[in-house]
């Protein structure tokens, strides 16, 4: 396992990824044992000789920890094991040690959560302090001499470890955390070699946290990370600490499920096996898994993930650190949709016979039939639609192919007729996801970020929590997990703000960094141009777009959308689908199938037997995101790629290769045979799409645009995502997602 994991980690350049202390890095620590350690009582009593002052080798900070000085005057100097480091005022002793390259063992401390200081694992010795101090909760003071390697510190850790293990069950062989457990690793490194505890261990009743998180509460060490995560990051008050002393328990106060779209993250932050993944329970050991660094496609955020697979099967999905996008969290949909990859898959090319049944055929036959019918159709009656999960390469190929056939009717789902895709600033998140943290006023227009883009919502929540930023919301009533003001439900409110009649327009113009987020659902409205123009007026009046700040954002809904707009896959007329005779659906499952005329020939190319298959005449099986190398651009314009983690199913092929083959059979050979050749082609359309792991900012935000004459309609804003857990072919095929929608969605 080890080599596979390392090799896959080396594949991806880590340019955008800032490393920060990762609690799972404990394996790196070396285990030191000296004779005097064996009898700590004696060693602690000894007087310590001064540490050698000179010739200390320079150390590298733990996991690339960096120091950022807001104000150079605030720098203080402390000594960690005699090695001097400069740190900003206000850092804790533990952080200072990290900068100095010393990794302090810990359970309750987590860099993204508040400090609890209740596990005591992080004890270190500080000169002139009578007893060891909890480094995570102690601010570093100028000139402090911190010692992490002394017998006192070691003895303290060993003692804490012994207390923690007292009530921890010895069930590592049947525990899913085994192999990636902080308690296991740290007891190996710092614990005693034998136990002295012979009494009965306490036991705790397991709690029901819903279909995603499995609990074995006897294993809990009361670090309260999960409680702090739920209240601070996820914004739900469901988890808490009950009882005192040995009766202390973590639980939901009343018999209640944890209703958060981020609940799966407690599995990662729980340092022991108390909270583990229910769908993954007893499925695999972590050292059997091969990790592949990839990108999530279930929403437009592009969360960084690692796909853990064993053989041809995706076993689980876990987050990867990316400070600019998902930090270290992912949504439950991202984490648990993977069982959908094993169900309802299309594995053979198929043609529907006269009796209405599908018959498996060879690729050659299927492509020949499709090519022939395409040739018999008039160019303007050919339509191609790409789906929510389509990668950039295949959308480029589809567009080129249809253009060569003489058709201009090629678009991506979720993009309204004649959407203006001219300027990138018009449809990306200009502020960038990380940039949202600088905003002090948010205006959300027709978007429900909690269900549309859970990670963006987490950012907004983080900002609101840290700086008390104000949030105004226009749209149907919906769930927020932070304070907000519901301004209205229809575009009229928008007009009021634009014309200064609404008190919120004052709030925007008084703000330092105002931020407007328009939902991607607006693109499907008939009056979208008028709405966008109104929003631009608000932006202009409120100075939302300045040279130093661009707060005008669109939050798109699907993984394919940004790249589709970049490539210009926009429907040109409302009638084209109704008059189509040949419809090519590339993973498009959410088109209105009623609109396709009965005599039209429908080709469905995709990986799941979802809605569109029922209407298809020919099925061409394609690869899912876990099986191919594909480029995706997220809603802020950051381009990332998926990598194949598992082999394709049956006879399926990569999407772009299918279209390339079809073009050859149809006698219009597309001029690319390799993925790099198709990327060279993309470079002549939207060069930003080949800058992997980069975010190309858009200029021209305030370019003069043609005047809009149409008026905004009175229709209230709609809900773009009805069911958070089921938004595309993969999540609709997933059993876990179905359980979640049944158990967790409020009726």
């Amino acid at each position: 396992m080890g080599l596979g994991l390392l090799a896959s980690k080396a594949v991806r350049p880590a340019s955008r990824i800032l490393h920060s202390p990762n609690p799972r890095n404990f394996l790196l620590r070396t285990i030191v044992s000296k004779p005097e350690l064996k009898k700590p009582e004696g060693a602690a009593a000894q007087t310590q000789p001064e540490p050698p002052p000179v010739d200390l080798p320079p150390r590298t900070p733990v996991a690339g920890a960096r120091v950022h000085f807001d104000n150079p005057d605030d720098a203080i100097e402390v000594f960690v094991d005699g090695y001097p480091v400069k740190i900003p005022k206000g850092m804790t002793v533990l952080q200072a040690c990290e900068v100095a390259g010393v990794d302090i063992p810990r359970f309750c401390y987590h860099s993204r959560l508040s400090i609890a200081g209740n596990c005591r694992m992080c004890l270190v010795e500080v000169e002139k302090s009578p007893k060891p101090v909890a480094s995570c909760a102690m601010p570093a003071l100028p000139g402090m001499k911190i010692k992490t390697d002394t017998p006192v510190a070691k003895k303290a850790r060993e003692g804490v470890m012994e207390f923690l293990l007292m009530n921890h069950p010895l069930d590592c062989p049947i525990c899913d955390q085994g192999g990636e457990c902080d308690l296991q690793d740290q007891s190996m490194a710092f614990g005693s070699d034998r136990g002295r505890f012979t009494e009965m261990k306490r036991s705790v009743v397991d709690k029901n946290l819903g279909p995603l998180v499995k609990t074995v509460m006897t294993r809990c060490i009361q670090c309260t990370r999960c409680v702090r995560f739920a209240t601070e990051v996820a914004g739900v008050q469901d988890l808490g600490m009950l009882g005192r002393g040995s009766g202390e328990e973590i639980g939901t106060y009343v018999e209640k499920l944890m209703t958060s779209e981020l609940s799966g993250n407690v599995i990662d932050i729980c340092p022991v096996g108390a909270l583990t993944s229910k769908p993954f329970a007893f499925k695999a050991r972590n050292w059997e898994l091969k990790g592949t660094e990839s990108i999530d496609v279930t929403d437009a955020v592009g969360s960084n993930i690692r796909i853990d697979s064993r053989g041809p099967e995706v076993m689980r999905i876990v987050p990867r650190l990316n400070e600019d996008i998902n930090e270290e969290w992912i949504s439950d949909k991202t984490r648990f949709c993977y069982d959908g990859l094993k169900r309802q898959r299309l594995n053979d090319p198929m043609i529907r016979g006269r009796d209405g049944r599908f018959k498996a055929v060879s690729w050659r036959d299927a492509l020949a039939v499709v090519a022939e019918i395409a040739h018999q159709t008039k160019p303007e009656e050919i339509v191609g639609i790409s789906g929510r999960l389509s990668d950039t390469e295949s959308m480029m190929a589809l567009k080129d192919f249809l253009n060569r056939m003489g058709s201009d009717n090629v678009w991506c789902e979720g993009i309204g007729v004649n959407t203006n895709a001219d300027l990138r600033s018009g449809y990306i998140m200009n502020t960038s996801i990380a940039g949202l943290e600088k905003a002090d006023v948010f205006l959300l227009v027709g978007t429900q970020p909690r269900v549309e883009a859970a990670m963006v919502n987490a950012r907004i929540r983080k900002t609101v929590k840290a700086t008390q930023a104000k949030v105004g919301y226009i749209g149907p009533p919906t769930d927020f997990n932070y304070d907000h003001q519901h301004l209205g439900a229809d575009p009229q409110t928008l007009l009021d703000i634009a014309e200064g009649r609404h008190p919120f327009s004052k709030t925007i113009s008084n703000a330092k960094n105002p931020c407007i987020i328009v939902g991607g659902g607006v693109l499907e409205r008939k009056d979208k141009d008028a709405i966008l123009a109104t929003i631009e007026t608000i932006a202009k009046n409120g100075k939302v777009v300045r040279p130093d700040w661009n707060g005008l954002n669109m939050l798109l809904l699907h993984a394919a959308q940004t790249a589709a707009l970049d490539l210009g896959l926009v429907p040109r007329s409302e009638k084209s689908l109704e008059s189509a005779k040949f419809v090519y659906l590339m993973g498009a499952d959410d088109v209105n199938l009623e609109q396709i005329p009965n005599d039209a020939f429908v080709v469905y190319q995709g990986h799941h037997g979802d809605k569109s298959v029922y209407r298809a005449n020919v099925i061409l099986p394609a690869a899912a995101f876990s099986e191919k190398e594909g480029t995706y651009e997220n809603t802020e314009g950051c381009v990332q790629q998926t990598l194949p983690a598992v082999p394709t199913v049956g006879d399926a092929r990569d999407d772009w290769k299918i279209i390339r083959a079809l073009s050859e059979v149809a006698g219009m050979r597309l001029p690319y045979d390799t993925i790099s050749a198709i990327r060279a082609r993309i470079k002549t359309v939207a060069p930003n799409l080949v800058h992997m792991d980069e975010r190309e900012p858009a200029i021209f935000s305030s370019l003069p645009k043609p005047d809009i004459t149409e008026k905004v309609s009175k229709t209230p804003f709609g809900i773009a995502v009805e069911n958070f857990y089921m938004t595309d072919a993969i999540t609709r095929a997933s059993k876990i997602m179905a359980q979640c929608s049944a158990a967790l969605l409020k009726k």
Partner: protein
Amino acid sequence: MAWRGNISKYLKELRFLMCQTSPASSTARAFVEKNYKELKTLNPKLPILIRECSGTEPQLWARYDMGVEKGIKLEGLTEEQISKALQDLVKAGESLKR
């Protein structure tokens, strides 16, 4: 400049590629800034895709019927010359149609 209203007659799509900051792209940026509104008003249905990306040479691409494309490098051209280049692309489209 009557030809400007005819762009959508002969062209299916127009693409400007340029860098956000480089001096080589400065005239292309200025051209877009000054002419986008006029071009779009005259050709409301024509996609004029403006794609910025760091380190890109300024280019102008036109897509005609049947997926035929023509591109011109704009490096070193003045704004008038860019306008001329655009006109040439439209003319090329006119001759393709015939």
